[in-house]
């Protein structure tokens, strides 16, 4: 790189290693660093925002939340039509019961989901959905209680207890109501020939 021939008037030492001095403004490193930092920050915030958006877009691990949707539909209907005030209350109780069911359900399957996640049967996304749901279900219950307070200021205390009982009783009723279906399906599956009295024709 150094090329002695073209330079004169210099000591031997300087000639050996002549540093090429370029004047650089004090701001250059600062500008460099700030550009770097700012771009990183923009990236980070964008990334985070997109992650949050993605999380929000993740579908619930529960099936459609019919109980809640119906409640909102009915509450809206109540504004335009003359509904019996207790219809809204009934819808809210149904919503609360479903919220309780979901809370119990999530707690119940915690171990299973963790096993599935750990042995690689489900991906990070599902795990994230599950974590989301844990938070959402609490919020949902809280929001039910708020609604209950709005409908009847001294209600929340009783409301939660009612929801618990309703939740279990509804499950019991659903199971009971399925008996007829089950009978028909199993009769078909096992080709059971029954007479009018439900007796097996041998």
């Amino acid at each position: 790189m150094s090329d002695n021939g073209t330079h004169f008037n210099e000591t031997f030492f300087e000639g050996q290693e002549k540093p090429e001095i370029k004047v650089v403004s004090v701001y250059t490193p600062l500008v460099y660093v700030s550009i770097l930092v700012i771009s990183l920050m923009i990236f980070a915030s964008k990334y985070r925002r997109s992650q949050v958006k993605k999380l929000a877009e993740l579908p619930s691990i529960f099936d459609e939340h019919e109980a809640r949707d119906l409640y909102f539909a009915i509450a809206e209907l109540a504004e335009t039509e003359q509904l019996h005030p207790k219809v809204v209350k009934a819808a809210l109780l149904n919503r609360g019961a479903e919220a309780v069911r979901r809370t119990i359900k999530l707690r119940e399957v915690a171990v299973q989901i963790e096993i599935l996640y750990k042995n690689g049967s489900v991906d990070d996304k599902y795990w994230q959905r599950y974590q989301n749901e844990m938070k959402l279900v609490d919020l949902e219950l809280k929001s039910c209680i708020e609604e209950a307070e709005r409908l009847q200021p001294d209600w929340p205390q009783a409301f939660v207890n009612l929801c618990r009982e309703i939740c279990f009783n509804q499950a019991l009723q659903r199971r009971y109501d399925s008996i007829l279906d089950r009978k028909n399906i199993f009769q078909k599956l096992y080709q059971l020939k029954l007479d009018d009295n439900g007796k097996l024709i041998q």
Partner: protein
Amino acid sequence: MGQSTGATPPVPITAKNKTMIQYDSNNKQLSIDNDSNTDRLTNLNQINKLTTALVPETNPNFQPQPNNETTNMVKNMFQSGMQQAQNKNIPDALRKVDLAVDMRNKARKPWEPFSFQLQELHMMLRNRTDLELVSQRNLDAWQDLEMLLNCGMVVPEVFIRLTDCLLKLNLVELARPYCERGLSLDPKNGPLLALFQACEKKMLEIEGDL
């Protein structure tokens, strides 16, 4: 993450479905024209049931309490069924018990204590099962028994009946596991051991090994 999930937003489904929900101001029941989604229908029925239960409720701060009136009503109907059973009139007994169960389903308010309701249903179903078994309605008995099992009645007696009715339906491959499960609860249970032998024999017969 917090801000987006914070307020559980009213889902757009409201706007769409508002028109679908119809309200009958006479009986205060809601109905929905599209019947595609069973889950939604179930929920709507649950709401209707709650409304029906709520309307006559005068105390705004009602608590989960069993309703004595209903209890007595159901009990009377059930007991008259049992009376018929003692008179060997099984079909009538079964009809009465069926009625008692239906009565329970309709009259019980959804918030009456679950443990109480479960116990009542258990008691009636157990008796209904026995009546069904006596009158050879084995499919009905099977499903009632599975319901009992599902609701936490894990006792040898249920397994005895399950094995018995499944054997009578010629479903040994289903009967045997139930029998074995019953025996796990009570390895020395006489009826179950006998039924187990019956299962084994039936298996051999079906397999042409006898």
